[in-house]
């Protein structure tokens, strides 16, 4: 995150991402889907040495459930970087996760019916 008054940003977004992630490979969507919902688990303490991006995620996720994509969007982070940091926090037990899509690509009929009903309620 670059905030006003901060030092000039590094040379490119790529370098910036590299610094945030410590140069690690970004996890795949197998780890956390874009629409998986996450929130901060109750009673957790911010890890020592947390960087500004982790702090920002921490504050944002303390407020309630958001999808992985929304966390990235609100904080102006590339999706892959947000996913990596969220995966770290999740592995450390700091996050609750909901609505994880099944691994298999089969579409669940009950969900489709709910989606259909919800959409139909939008039209008069």
């Amino acid at each position, binding site marked *: 995150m670059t905030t006003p008054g901060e030092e000039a940003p590094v040379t490119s977004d790529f370098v910036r991402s590299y610094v945030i992630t410590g140069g690690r490979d970004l996890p795949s969507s197998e780890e956390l889907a874009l629409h998986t919902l996450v929130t901060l688990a109750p009673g957790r303490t911010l890890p020592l040495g947390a960087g500004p991006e982790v702090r920002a995620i921490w504050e944002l996720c303390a407020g309630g459930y958001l999808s992985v994509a929304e966390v990235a*969007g*609100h904080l102006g982070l590339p999706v892959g970087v947000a996913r990596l940091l969220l995966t770290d926090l999740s592995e450390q037990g700091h996050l609750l996760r*909901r609505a994880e899509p099944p691994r298999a690509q089969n579409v669940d009929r009950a969900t*489709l*019916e709910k989606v259909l009903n919800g959409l139909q*309620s939008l039209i008069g």
Partner: protein
Amino acid sequence: MDSNPSSAETAQKSIYVSSAVTNAAKILVVGHFAVGKTTLIGSLSEITPLRTEEKMTQASVHVDDLRGVTDKTTTTVALDFGRLTLSDDLVLYLFGTPGQQRFMQLWEDMARGALGALLLVDPARLEETFPVIDLVERYGLEYAIAVNCFDPAATYSEAEVREALDLLPDTPVVYCDAREQQSSAMALIALVRHLLERAA
């Protein structure tokens, strides 16, 4: 919100998913550049549509396999998405995805767990839709065609669209105005009905 009261300011609360929601569904809104994907998402979303970016550094691996391109440069692709609460326990995310072939990694990410894709079409630029159809088919996504009527006078008949795009007979074709919530909802309804038929 049932969580940590020391956290978010009150003003932020509306950005969160209701705490009763336990299920999140995803539908892709795909189509070529400037076809109206973000407009359609914005017409339905309960939050201000968000934009984020995906870095395509690892995409070159996939691209290598498919097209023999070996460049390792980083490409940034914007993703636009919105959210719609459909019932007490279900939210729908709409992800607008660019149709370019070189963003294969992005497509894998998008396709994972997606119910299906609404494929937006500009009738004046039908040929630009072919690569997008190839992509949705490659990822095994069921889809419906939504012809975005920018100019009703310039539109083609459904038969013409079907023929030009070489669609299967059961692929739905609907006309919509992506700026209008009801029209956008109708297009998604056509898609979801199709998905239900295919799931039967």
